[in-house]
């Protein structure tokens, strides 16, 4: 069930209606828990067992920690890490590591074969695994007292607005919100509805349409010249941003309508003027997770340049791997990590701001070529094509695919990119949800309905899953 589907609107209306009809906190939480499990089971009920396993293990492990000796606490922590990362390793990474090991062994001249598990990747596994781990680690570090309510903890793990693609919520922020029934008057309805609509537009009107052109070029890059490749790479950057930040907006808005506050996940990343700043604006809940649970424990930037370099590359290696079980994701992570390392040695702050923006956009766009490509060879082939030294001129001349081959359509997409950039800049200065919250309700309601009427013709129909669902 996708946020952009009609059936989600029905599902959410029912959940919302019943939730606010219930007066006390416990029935509300039980209702949300049932709704969240139903939401997940609508995709594949069998994988609900993994969510339940992860929930049970972390609840029990954390509950046992406070009264134990440090050594036992460490054992408990390792139990949680082993179970959670073990599930992730089996379902997400087993085939990748097995295939890589076989390829390496063959390269060494030691032929071996293996059997792939070919498991379906459970939806949202990377997200809820990191979420539950953060809880156990926080309890282990005495930053958080374990909750004694299994319902609260289960709801923290599987709260449906953010269950399958984040933002990755910390227990320290979420669990206190479950302590008392939240009054309807505290809900910022207009801001939430506007935020949901913004996310919906990003996903259904921009990302899904951009995907058509992107897929056309990436499926056979040789057919296209350098300009079209730049266009496709830029459009993919737009697509993935609109897809993922659109999901986050809708998740935050849905949670907001239920009275919950989720953390921001994106703050206009393409306006960053360094890669360091980019990662403070892009997928914030993941980057701060890696910062707090990996980078800082590794020593952060406090142990000299060499160690900092290692720490950054290690974090971005794992950040890449978190995104997917493929070497392209690892390379993408290291590519970003390398620029973060370089920024520690090169004083880019002295460069004019415009140049810094251009630098960030270039790094991000080229990085996403690696991210989007099916393998590393294809990624390099595409990147070489960006400078116009590759491509099949004869085939390009013979075939002009509808999606991009015609100059007019190219101009249309360039216009979309320009329009998107303008909106990105304008909305970074004035928050639409905040403006909407100040509009009188009697004016907001018909205006909102009218905008929905203007938006719906522009959605791409059919099943259009979110890109980050695969992670």
């Amino acid at each position, binding site marked *: 069930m996708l946020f952009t589907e*009609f059936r989600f609107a029905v599902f959410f209306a029912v959940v919302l*209606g019943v939730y606010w009809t219930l007066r006390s906190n416990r029935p509300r939480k039980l209702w949300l828990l049932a709704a969240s499990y139903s939401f997940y089971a609508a995709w594949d009920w069998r994988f609900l067992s993994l969510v339940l396993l992860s929930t049970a293990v972390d609840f029990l492990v954390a509950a046992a920690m406070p009264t134990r000796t440090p050594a036992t606490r460490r054992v408990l922590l390792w139990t949680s890490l082993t179970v959670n990362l073990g599930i992730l390793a089996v379902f997400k990474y087993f085939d990748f590591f097995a295939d890589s090991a076989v390829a390496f062994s063959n390269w060494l001249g030691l032929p071996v074969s293996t059997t792939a598990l070919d498991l379906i990747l459970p939806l949202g596994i990377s997200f809820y695994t990191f979420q539950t781990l953060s809880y156990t680690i926080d309890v282990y570090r005495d930053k958080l007292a374990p909750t004694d309510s299994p319902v609260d903890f289960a709801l923290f793990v599987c709260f449906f607005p953010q269950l399958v693609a984040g933002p990755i919520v910390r227990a320290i922020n979420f669990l206190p919100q479950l302590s008392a029934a939240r009054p309807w008057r505290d809900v910022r309805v207009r801001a939430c509805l506007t935020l949901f609509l913004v996310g919906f537009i990003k996903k259904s*009107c921009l990302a899904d349409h951009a995907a058509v052109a992107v897929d056309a070029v990436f499926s056979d890059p040789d057919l296209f010249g350098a300009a079209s490749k730049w266009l496709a790479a830029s459009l993919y950057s737009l697509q993935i941003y609109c897809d993922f930040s659109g999901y986050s907006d809708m998740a935050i808005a849905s949670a907001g309508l239920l009275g919950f506050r989720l953390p921001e996940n994106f703050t206009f990343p393409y306006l960053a003027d360094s890669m360091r700043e980019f990662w403070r604006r892009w997928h914030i809940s993941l980057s701060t997770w890696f910062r707090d649970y990996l980078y800082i424990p590794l020593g952060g930037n406090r142990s000299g340049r060499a160690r900092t370099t290692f720490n950054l590359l290690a974090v971005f290696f794992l950040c890449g791997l978190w995104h997917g079980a493929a070497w392209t994701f690892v390379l993408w992570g290291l590519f970003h990590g390398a620029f973060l390392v370089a920024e520690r040695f090169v004083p880019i702050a002295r460069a004019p701001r415009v140049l810094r923006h251009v630098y960030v956009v270039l790094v991000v766009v080229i990085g996403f070529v690696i991210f989007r490509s099916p393998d590393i060879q294809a990624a390099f082939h595409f990147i070489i094509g960006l400078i116009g030294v590759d491509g099949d001129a004869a085939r390009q001349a013979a075939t002009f695919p509808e999606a991009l081959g015609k100059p007019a359509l190219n101009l249309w997409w360039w216009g979309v990119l320009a329009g998107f950039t303008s909106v990105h800049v304008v909305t970074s200065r004035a928050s639409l949800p905040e403006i909407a919250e100040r509009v009188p*309700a*009697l004016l*907001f*309601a*018909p*205006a*909102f*309905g*009218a*905008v*929905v*009427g*203007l938006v*719906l*013709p*522009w*959605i*791409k*129909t*059919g099943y259009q899953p979110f890109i980050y669902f695969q992670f």
Partner: protein
Amino acid sequence: MTPRIAAGLVLALAGYTASAGLQRPFVPLSEEYGLRAKFEAFEETAGDYTAVYLGSSLVYRSFRPDVIDPFLSQATGQEFRSFNLGMAGMFTQETDALLDRVLAQQPARLRWIVVQVPAWFSPFAHEQLGDNQRAVFAYAPRQTLALLRHQNWRTMPSLHERLTVAANHVRQAVRRHGSIGLGPQLWQAILGARTETLVSQKREFLVARGYASLDAETDTEFIERRQRFADNSGGRAAYRRKLEDWSQAPTNIHTNVRDSYLYELLDSAKRRAAEHDIELVLVGMPTLERNKLTEWLSTDNSGFTLINLSDPRTAPRLFDAELRFDPHHFNHEGAQVFSEAFAARLAETVKNL
């Protein structure tokens, strides 16, 4: 629900309805299967026609205005000019919606709307079209209400099936009202832009007045279909065997036709056409699947004008394998033979009316 929330919902709905309603008139017909090109070709010359043909590919590939028009002009002593609005996959609800569009043109000379008798299988067969943009145009509250009123709904085997059909109707109605996903077409229509495909299709439809022979199709799918059927030991042999079994074909009607979704749509179409002094003529098409609705209409005093060409015993030539492109459709020569037969029968009908 508090009065404040209720008021907000009503106002939001009003805003939505207003903005969707303002856009709706600008949305062109879907370009899928050339529907928009064909209707625009008709629209441009609507005042010229005395008859139009509506139905599925059986109509599209069978009614040749270049054959029918001279015949009927001569037979009736008045200029007869027709347009073939048949379209691949057109189902009854779509025919019904298109009929309204034809009537909305108020074509001055139009006297006959010829509609293929729908196949009497599940009236929900079109549900499989799912997200087909073209199907969206075919859903109207009138049709949904007709569905709910009749035995088709009452006798559906399971609640799940009923809910699926109802949900599909609601979804399609919402899509239709909100022009959902039709933004690019809307924008093109407002700008007056035309794709090359649309322009060339429209030109061809204007020349042939909506008819196109399957023989002229160059897509691999069509070529393979023709080859499969041309194989004497395979396609044609199977066709002849099925034809021999025709008289033993099982009946599909077990219920009261008058209490059916399709009957209400046809009856409503007849009345709407009559309001414009236009006669609705039903045609039983020569198919291998024995159409029991055609047989019912031919025996019952239903008040419909029916030209029944569906019986191989009375119209054997129309079932000649040599005249077929595939088991269901005529080739170009077959379309000529069919058109002559139809024209002769329509001439008789005109005299009797």
